[in-house]
């Protein structure tokens, strides 16, 4: 190939990198529940209705533990809260001193006492020794996450600086999202550098060439920059799932490169080496992209995005591998011709013996597959973001502490269709007031915040002062009710904006962090209570907790569907390209074996099914099938009869690449799994490490047994009589 063409290809590659670098590095982090929102019609409709009627902001709980509750300490606590929450991204905060009229504050102090004040207020701003504020953040954006980060950074200083306070606890869904973001950033800050160092060492150990290292890194950088650039340009953000895209690009690119580089050393000519691996790599790219593409059937958006963009990236990896060698390698050379790697130092003979094992050994993977199916079906699932952190993580401790002492911070929103009109009319008000009263009595519901609560609070604020004597608004006259609403609107118009729209009456529920079983029980009870009140239309049920539970529901469904499509399409494509129908059953056992091993590993490691585990199965199948394709391609390429010769040739052509690639992938995923304290990443790493090593074992043991039995005629038409 002409040097000028090589130079042009190389320059084109550099220009491509420059063009995509800006959008690639500008991709932002976002781990809010909204990001993980399930792509279901009802969920979307409910969320849309909510957003159309009410401001979309998110509430957190900031709790200051005081040494003693008294007026002076409360003032100090309020001052600390103001200093903490005056960040861009905080919409407002609600606290005792800010929201309670001074006359009522005085009344509580003098007549009721601070300890009993929680019964008088909309929310227990003061309870035991705690002074608590509800801090409301902007919905789902960078400013929200920056503000939360800044608040968390300032907390230790205030604890040290003020003698009156002993601790500050901060919890709620946006805070969990912030910590999820931090933990998922481990991939970028810890694992990526570790991976680069680990793989560079392996590459250098294998090829002993700086040229190879540069070519490999150039191809990876190119694939990363272009893939992430496209990802960013399409307006996507990174989260704890999509953070894995760069890692996967790195790993997949390294694996493909290994096959190409070993082919180049085998043929001692760039063009021949590249041509030799063109079809298997194309097939590998096709099956891997289908493996990841199958994740697009998921209703959980980040899994869908991971599938979509990794399957696109696989083709970019394929292209950049070839472009790098047609440009950089031809231009500068790789200095690898004299390195005879094939067959050196690798136990090829011992590996070959594995293929001679009795056909009965195939019962082992079959048994493992059956065991794996049972394990997956009966494994418990977990989608509560809090449980992804270690037991003693700040966010888990803070959330548990606040839940025990003040309130649950999981949010449910109920929107009740209301009759048209500026103010609530008498009958409707009585219905909702009674409904709320019944809601409060339900297990797990800690507090309800609504217009009714503010109205009752406003009524209490004037009791004992005036001629107005009716404390219970549910039995008050319609005139009194309207007067109270008018007064509330006059004094705090924002309450109407937040809790009543033209069409809906909103009840914000704060409840404990509960699992799906308790949630469904609670939802049925709410439905039953609502039915009792005979409202004229059905209500809308949404909120953070509802969204989290829906994600959980779709997890298992995603896993089953995506794995089914991966297996189906991979086998169809292999059959089409290798022009052999028998590939279907020959490939299925060795490639389902790693999936089964991973499923059993779930039980061994005691991992629940989470957003982290749900996608590893189809990813593992997509990667595992690569080695099978390379082995199949060489096996059928040799036009000589007999299993032994064909398998020997196939091993000679591929075993080094498969061995090294499996080692790199196993090591890389194991490192990810062991280094992380963040559950989804640990699960992802460890399970894929198990998957990679068992895929290698399946390819060198069960695949040759299947091929041998096939050539002997046990599975299909007899090809020849040679047994070994």
């Amino acid at each position, binding site marked *: 190939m002409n040097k000028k063409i090589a130079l042009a290809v190389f320059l084109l590659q550099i220009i491509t990198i420059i063009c995509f670098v800006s959008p690639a590095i500008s991709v932002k982090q976002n781990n809010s529940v909204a990001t993980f929102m399930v792509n279901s019609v009802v969920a979307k409709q409910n969320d849309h209705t909510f957003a159309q009627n009410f401001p979309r902001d998110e509430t957190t709980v900031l709790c200051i533990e005081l040494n003693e509750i008294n007026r002076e300490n409360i003032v100090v606590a309020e001052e600390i809260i103001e200093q903490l929450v005056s960040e861009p991204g905080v919409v407002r905060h609600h606290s005792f001193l*800010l929201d309670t009229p001074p006359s009522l504050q005085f009344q509580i102090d003098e007549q009721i006492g601070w300890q009993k004040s929680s019964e008088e207020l909309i929310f227990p701003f003061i309870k035991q020794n705690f002074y608590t504020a509800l801090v409301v953040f902007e919905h789902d954006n960078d400013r929200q996450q920056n503000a939360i980060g800044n608040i968390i950074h300032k907390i230790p200083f205030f604890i040290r600086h003020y003698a009156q306070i002993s601790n500050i606890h901060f919890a709620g869904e946006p805070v969990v999202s912030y910590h999820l973001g931090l933990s998922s950033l481990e991939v970028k800050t810890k694992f990526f550098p570790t991976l680069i160092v680990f793989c560079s060492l392996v590459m250098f150990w294998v090829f002993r060439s700086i040229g190879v290292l540069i070519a490999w890194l150039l191809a990876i950088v190119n694939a990363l920059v272009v893939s992430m650039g496209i990802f960013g340009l399409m307006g996507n953000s990174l989260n704890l799932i999509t953070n894995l895209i760069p890692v996967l690009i790195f790993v997949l690119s390294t694996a493909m490169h290994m096959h190409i580089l070993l082919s180049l050393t085998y043929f001692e000519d760039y063009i021949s080496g590249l041509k030799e691996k063109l079809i298997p790599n194309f097939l590998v790219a096709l099956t891997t992209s289908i493996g990841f593409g199958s994740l697009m059937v998921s209703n959980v958006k980040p899994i869908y995005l991971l599938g979509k963009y990794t399957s696109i990236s696989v083709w970019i990896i394929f292209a950049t591998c070839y472009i790098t060698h047609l440009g950089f390698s031809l231009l500068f050379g790789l200095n690898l011709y004299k390195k005879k790697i094939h067959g050196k130092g690798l136990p090829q003979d011992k590996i070959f013996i594995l293929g001679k094992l009795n056909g009965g050994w195939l019962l082992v993977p079959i048994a493992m597959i059956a065991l794996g199916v049972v394990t997956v079906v009966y494994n418990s699932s977990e989608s509560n973001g809090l449980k992804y952190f270690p037991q003693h993580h700040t966010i888990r401790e803070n959330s548990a502490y606040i839940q025990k002492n003040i309130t649950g911070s999981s949010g449910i929103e109920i929107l009740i269709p209301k009759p048209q009109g500026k103010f609530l009319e008498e009958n409707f008000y009585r219905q909702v007031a009674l409904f709320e009263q019944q809601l409060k009595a339900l297990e797990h519901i800690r507090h309800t915040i609504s217009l009714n609560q503010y109205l009752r609070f406003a009524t209490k604020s004037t009791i004992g002062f005036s001629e107005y004597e009716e404390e219970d608004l549910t039995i008050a006259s319609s005139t009194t009710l309207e007067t109270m609403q008018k007064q509330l609107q006059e004094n705090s118009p924002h309450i109407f904006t937040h809790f009543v729209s033209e069409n809906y009456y909103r009840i914000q529920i704060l409840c404990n962090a509960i699992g799906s079983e308790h949630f469904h029980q609670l939802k049925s009870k709410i439905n039953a209570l609502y039915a009792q009140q005979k409202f004229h239309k059905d209500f809308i049920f949404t909120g953070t907790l509802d969204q989290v539970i829906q994600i959980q529901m779709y997890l298992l469904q995603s896993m089953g569907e995506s794995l089914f499509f991966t297996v189906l399409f991979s086998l169809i494509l292999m059959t089409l390209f290798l022009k052999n129908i028998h590939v279907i059953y020959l490939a299925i056992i060795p490639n389902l074996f790693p999936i089964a091993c991973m499923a059993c590993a779930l039980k061994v490691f005691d991992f629940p099914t989470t957003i982290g585990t749900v996608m590893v199965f189809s990813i593992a199948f997509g990667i595992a099938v690569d080695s099978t394709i390379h082995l199949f391609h060489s096996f059928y390429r040799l036009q000589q009869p007999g299993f032994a010769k064909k398998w020997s040739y196939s091993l000679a052509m591929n075993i080094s690449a498969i061995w090294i690639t499996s080692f790199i992938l196993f090591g890389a995923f194991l490192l990810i799994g062991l280094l992380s304290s963040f559950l989804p990443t640990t699960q992802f790493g460890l399970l894929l490490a198990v998957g990679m090593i068992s895929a290698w074992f399946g390819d060198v043991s069960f695949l040759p047994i299947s091929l041998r039995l096939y050539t002997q005629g046990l599975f299909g038409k007899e090809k020849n009589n040679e047994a070994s």
Partner: protein
Amino acid sequence: MKRHKVLTTLLGLLLTCCDSSNTEDMWKRYANASLNPGNYHSDAHYLVRSRTLLSDKISSQALQALAKDSSWYVRSKVAQHEKTTPQILALLAKDEQLQVRRAVAQNGNTSPEVLVELAKDPQWQVRFAVADNDNVPVSILHEWCTSPSHFTKKELFYRLAHHYDTFRKLRDLLDNKNETAIAEKMCSEVARYTCAHPEILRDLSKHPNYEVRLQVAQNSSTPADCLQDLAKDEDESVRSEVIYNSSTTKEILEAMIATEEDEDIKEEAQDMLDEKEE
């Protein structure tokens, strides 16, 4: 544009790397800000900038600059500052943040014109804070006093209880306008608060309406000299309440026993005295 984005991102990454050292440094600056405010007016962190306002050396130029600060916390601290000029306060009165407007309403340097505007604020926290200001035009208070809203009246009376001069002005105005019923209602409510200014209680102890004097007699914050006078009140229910006031001294009770003509009251006073001596 792209280059700018790249540079910003790289700078962001660099800042993230230095984040922990920056945080430590920020607290050092925070500690020094009140000592040398001049060096920290334009500090990157709002807590450091707000800290400069604690210094006596703060200049009016600095206050003017900090009044336009991006952080509402800094602006609220400027609005609270005793050196902040009426011009700056007028500017801050239009702030979008509730806490800033509330601080303006409470600042003694805020002009009556601005207070009139703030008295119409949609947020009650701001609106009623005007009543805490000694410069508040009495016409606003009169308007609230005659409002049909119980909440408005309750908040007004609670705040009036703390401010003798304001209370005095409003009472005079009501008297001049012959709005006796409203004035009596106000006095009666204000007299209930134990946080009421002692001078207010002293005044109200001489109120012509016995119901107002009754409230004063019940109030545990009523000064001893007023209780002494109320012990000789013409109304027997007022004299009786003085007996049960926790602030009534033995001397007052002894004087009552010596001078009281009503036998029942005398007996009650004696019982209370015995109880106190025990």
